[in-house]
């Protein structure tokens, strides 16, 4: 028997989608229960992530992409992640404003989520939300995130196609090389190309690609002017091309990404345990560090050696 949540999700019932996504986001016992229920019904939808510095025009670009995909008859789900206040954990979520023209379209679902101040928890929550959306079988799942900070970079490990958006003449080219954001890009977008000197930015970005770890992987560079809907069609083409080739090999998610997610999840669980657990040896190491008998590097090595010998 199919649970009524599954039936409602597959019929794209808005109320159920909204509620289940909250449950998935919040985690805990309810989320595990939910994920257990829906596991057999998760479809192979392709997830595209848009990331880039604040002000590069991601939301406007996303709005154009939704329109373009709808023109092609595809249904679209959007997760827009806004940063939360590091002090209160609260957030003002405003990305939706730029997508309001799609508000009454039944084939478009937009959900705003807050980073909730958590560095590690965010990507776990988003992974659960993506699973829920995959039950509703949207043709395209788009995820927008502020491309700064480790939490947001981690989120990009959840997507099948990573689109990095930058604006010309903001120094982003150099920043991009430094931050390693190019390494995760499958498609590069230079937005606001009406703002002059794109001629400088495009070759710089193309050149920067040769510094990549894997220079054989071709990364298209797409110039756009999101506010005038220019270049959006080409961007949609590139995304669909990639999603089809990924679909053909039957493998959307690549092994290395999953491995990274798993390692991060385990590391986080370990961190929690090591921090809270009563442990004599850890206490002794702390005291030694406090008294300058050991530095942290040495203490880590002692702990790991001990741990390895325990496992043998």
């Amino acid at each position: 028997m199919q649970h009524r949540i599954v039936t409602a999700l597959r019929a794209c019932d808005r109320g159920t989608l909204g509620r289940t996504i909250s449950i998935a986001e919040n985690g805990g016992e309810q989320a595990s229960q939910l994920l257990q229920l829906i596991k057999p019904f998760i479809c192979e939808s392709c997830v595209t992530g848009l990331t880039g510095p604040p002000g590069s025009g991601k939301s406007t670009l996303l709005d154009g992409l939704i329109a373009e995909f709808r023109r092609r008859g595809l249904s679209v789900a959007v997760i827009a992640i806004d940063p939360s206040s590091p002090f209160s954990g609260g957030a003002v979520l405003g990305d939706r404003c730029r997508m309001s023209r799609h508000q009454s379209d039944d084939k478009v679902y937009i959900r705003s989520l807050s980073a909730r101040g958590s560095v590690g928890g965010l990507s776990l929550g988003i992974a659960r939300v993506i699973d829920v959306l995959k039950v509703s079988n949207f043709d395209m799942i788009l995820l927008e995130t502020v491309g700064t900070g480790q939490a947001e970079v981690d989120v990009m490990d959840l997507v099948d196609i990573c689109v990095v958006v930058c604006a010309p003449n903001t120094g982003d080219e150099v920043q991009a090389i430094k931050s390693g954001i190019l390494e995760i890009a499958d498609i590069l977008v230079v937005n606001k190309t009406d703002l002059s000197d794109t001629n400088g930015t495009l070759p710089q970005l193309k050149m920067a690609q040769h510094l990549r770890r894997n220079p054989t992987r071709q990364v298209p560079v797409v110039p756009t002017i999101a506010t005038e809907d220019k270049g959006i069609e080409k961007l949609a083409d590139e995304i669909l091309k990639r999603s089809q080739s990924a679909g053909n090999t039957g493998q959307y998610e690549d092994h290395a990404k999953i491995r990274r997610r798993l390692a991060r999840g385990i590391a986080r669980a370990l961190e929690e345990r090591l921090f809270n657990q009563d442990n004599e040896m850890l206490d002794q190491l702390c005291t030694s560090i406090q008294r300058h008998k050991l530095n942290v590097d040495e203490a880590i090595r002692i702990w790991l050696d001990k741990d390895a010998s325990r496992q043998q």
Partner: protein
Amino acid sequence: MVAAALRDAGMEVIYTPPWQDIAAVVRLAQDEDVDVIGISSLATDHLLVPKLMNAVRQAGLQHVSIIVGGIVPEQDEKELLAAGVSHVFHPGSSMQDIVLKVSELARAARTQAPNIL
């Protein structure tokens, strides 16, 4: 102002442009699984709120409260409250009062939301 105060109290606030139609607000409330809808009223906008209230209830969002802020004459306020609006904030309301009321309503909404599992 209000959005920032609510954020500083640890809430997640979804901000929309003005002049949303009723269907759009209901859709947004469903999509985002909100607890409280706040309507900022200019001139006589608040007279639309009873219609919104109906639409929200019809969409099955029994647990969602609606509050209104703005210049609302006494007679209108009575009508709004009779229609099921939880609270009307007049100019000069203190931020602290607003934050308290909203978090109280949000908590109530969380406990009243139907358990779908």
